[in-house]
């Protein structure tokens, strides 16, 4: 299994505060690497650094063999990185299909094409349809995103990410706000995707995390507290005290 | 350039700038606090000038006319807000632009119906109708100095109102979070009404003060409005401080432009705006 994503002593300062403080981790194709930790641990900042939404203060990021620290988000996206958002960030007025189609269209070398109809680009349509299908939304294809349920919108977030045919997936709390049944479906989806991509997952839902992650990294106050397999993390006393213990209460 | 002429240009530039500030401050306040863009703002400048024309014919004292004029403009502002503007708070800016554009047409025609289309003059108040000599041959009209002084006094008054009074505090709070302020028991609707009327009264006052100098004519509101927009863009929406700085800059640039480069004098103001847009699109004191 190749390493698709690697960070080296990654650091992000906001003024005098280190939101991410020396984080080193690796993510391989075919396995899910979950990042967990209490609120304010720096997890979303980490994802923002990886997707290019923020530039690192120090440290390196290597994606698919390339140094990407400091590259703008659209360049990183073009390298094959797909990222979903914690707060749903979709095109509310468009159908589920159009949302994915726009995402897929971004893979064209340029969208400055004025004459041929967008719906005649078969590969783009197929990428969008495929993404919807993998996420179980094919029956909701023509429904406006605003009319979808919250869970379906979270699925659409994932579908949009998939539509760009990425090799690396960055998911920021995909299960946020979901009910039990929707969450179950999402977990299955994530498991399927994890088998075929390199996936970094930030999540609070412990059941989901322990069910699908091959590697866990626990972050507290911007640092890595512990890293290892689910069994190792469960047995780690420090982690239990700092995080898991508090979560069980 | 002769120092006396230079001084005259500076005084003219400052006077024009301060007058612009009076108009632009109302515009920027109304937008910054209530989120409303009001194209008819220039119409109130014109209304002020025509009011000055009419009132000074019946009221012998110029200053009394001004006070009456301000009161009238304020009252019209209150009515306008209650009747129409409060329906626009939650609407897209597009609709505010259109509706207030319609208001401009209405005000122009009303003006035409009431006062006709002729150009009128307003006499300078007798007490100030003299000039201070600067050199053997050049002198400066005292009335113009009085105008600048009044505008400056109002600028200080606004600062005091907004920074040091309870009303000002409510205004500042309301601009940040309307609903929160409302739930604190403050009648934000009333605050908005007062702010709107105040803004329009300022524009009218500017028109009244300017009338003896620039005369009273149809369409006088339009140019002032556009330049006021430029002031607001350069200074930053919602910033009274920005409006003052930008207005003075424009007043001086325009005045010196007319003297030094008359062919492009009209464009100087817009070139200034283009430069600010390139450097800092949100304006000098605007929030990013």
């Amino acid at each position, binding site marked *: 299994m190749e390493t698709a994503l690697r960070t080296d002593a990654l650091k992000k300062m906001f003024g005098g505060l280190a939101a991410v403080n020396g984080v080193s981790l690796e993510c391989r194709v075919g396995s899910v690497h979950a990042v967990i930790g209490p609120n304010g641990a720096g997890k979303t900042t980490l994802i923002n650094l990886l997707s290019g939404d923020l530039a690192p203060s120090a440290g390196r990021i290597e994606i698919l063999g390339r140094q990407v620290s400091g590259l703008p988000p659209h360049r990183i996206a073009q390298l094959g990185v797909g990222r979903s958002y914690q707060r749903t960030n979709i095109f509310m007025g468009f159908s589920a299909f159009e949302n994915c189609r726009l995402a897929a269209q971004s893979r064209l070398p340029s969208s400055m094409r004025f004459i041929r109809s967008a719906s005649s680009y078969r590969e783009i349509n197929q990428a969008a349809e495929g993404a919807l299908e993998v996420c179980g939304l094919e029956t909701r294809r023509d429904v406006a995103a605003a009319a979808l349920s919250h869970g379906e919108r979270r699925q659409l977030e994932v579908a949009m990410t998939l539509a760009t045919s990425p090799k690396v997936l960055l998911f920021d709390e995909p299960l946020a706000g979901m009910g039990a049944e929707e969450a179950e479906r999402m977990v299955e989806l994530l498991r399927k995707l994890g088998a075929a991509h390199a996936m970094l997952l930030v999540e609070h839902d412990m059941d989901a995390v322990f069910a699908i992650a091959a590697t866990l990294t626990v972050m507290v106050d911007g640092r890595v507290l512990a890293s290892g397999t689910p069994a190792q993390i469960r047995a780690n006393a420090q982690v239990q005290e700092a995080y898991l213990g508090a979560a069980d209460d | 350039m002769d120092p006396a002429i230079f001084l005259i240009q500076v005084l003219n530039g400052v006077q024009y700038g301060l007058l612009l500030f009076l108009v632009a401050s109302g515009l920027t306040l109304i937008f910054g606090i209530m989120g409303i863009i009001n194209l008819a703002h220039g119409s109130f400048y014109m209304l002020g000038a025509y009011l000055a024309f009419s009132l000074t014919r019946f009221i012998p004292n110029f200053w009394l006319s001004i006070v009456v004029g301000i009161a009238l403009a304020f009252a019209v502002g209150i009515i306008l807000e209650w009747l129409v503007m409060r329906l626009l708070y939650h609407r897209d800016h597009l609709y505010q*632009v259109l509706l207030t554009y319609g208001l401009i047409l209405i005000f122009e*025609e009303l003006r035409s119906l009431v006062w006709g289309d002729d150009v009128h003059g307003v006499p300078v108040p007798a007490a100030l109708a003299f000039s201070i000599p600067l050199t053997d041959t050049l002198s400066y009209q005292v009335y113009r100095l009085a105008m600048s002084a009044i505008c400056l006094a109002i600028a200080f008054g606004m600062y005091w109102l907004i920074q040091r009074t309870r009303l000002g505090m409510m205004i500042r709070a309301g601009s940040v979070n309307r609903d929160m302020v409302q739930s604190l028991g403050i009648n934000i609707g009333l605050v908005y009404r007062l702010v709107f009327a105040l803004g329009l009264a300022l524009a009218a006052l500017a028109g009244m003060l300017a009338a003896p100098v620039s005369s009273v004519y149809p369409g006088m509101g339009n140019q002032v409005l556009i330049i006021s927009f430029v002031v607001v*863009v350069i200074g930053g929406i919602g910033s009274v401080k920005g409006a003052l700085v930008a207005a003075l800059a424009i007043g001086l640039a325009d005045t010196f432009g007319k003297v030094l480069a008359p062919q492009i004098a009209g464009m100087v103001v817009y070139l200034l705006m283009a430069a600010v847009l390139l450097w800092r699109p949100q304006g000098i004191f605007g929030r990013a």
Partner: protein
Amino acid sequence: MPRPAQILLLAVLLALAAFPLVGEKFYIQFVTKVMIMALFAMSLDLLVGYAGLVSLGHALPFGLAAYALMLMTPEYQAPGFWLSIAASMSVAAIASLVVGLLVLRTSGIYFIMVTLAFGQMAYYYVHDSKHLGGSDGKYIYVRPALEMFGWKPFDLENPAHFYYVVLALMVFVYTTIRILLASPFGRVVVAIRENEHRLRMLGYATFRYKLVCFILAGMLAGLAGWLAAAHDGLVNPEMLSWHQSGQLLMMVILGGMGTPAGPILGAAALKALELVFQGWTKHWQLLLGLFIVASVLFMPRGLAQVLEWKRRSAPTR
């Protein structure tokens, strides 16, 4: 577009095509003017109704193109149709490029104000320029000569011929805009209005799309300006004024922005109202102003709302 609407549009097109055969000269010229305004309104709707860019300075490319035609028309000699259209539209495109690079750095209320300001800048420049005719403007004594491979099918001095050329161009612009909106470019532009941030995160350089859209809209406005100048035989600074821009915006909103036929409906309705009001009183602008205020308050989605057409800018297919 729903079936009934398609049929209606076709019917209108046929009626327009047949009109010169039965109408009087005054009304032929009136409808020609309406069609020119409809074309102009369609160009603004591209910005307002689809890209979400509310420009209050769209009279700028319109007026500059008109003046360009005037400059290309020596006293009594007809300029070439194709050459002068190309030149006028190029002038409009360049102006839109320059202005666009500046104004697109802003958004929302700032954008409205700076487009207004630049429009007025052009107005004052033309108004104060003696060589451009100053506040009176200048006449265009001869309409351009339309020649295709040595063949002269139309004599533009003939009102009916000019009418048909305008009709053809209006249909051409309508079709062009539909094609544009269905293209990959068009889909991005429409999405910018919906969620520009997400588009950037997907890798689209949205500024470029807004700029190209702004230039295209400017070019079409230039075409309208060329036609207006040729039609009126006169150019004056009022063609660049904010009243022109404001009225145009009113047409777009009145007809229903972001709908295919909205701009056309709006142009026709507003011009018709103007004609009616002008017949009633010298102070017709008062009535127009009242109408504008009333329609913003009671009919914000425009006539298209009344006719129950769904907004085309939100594709659900």
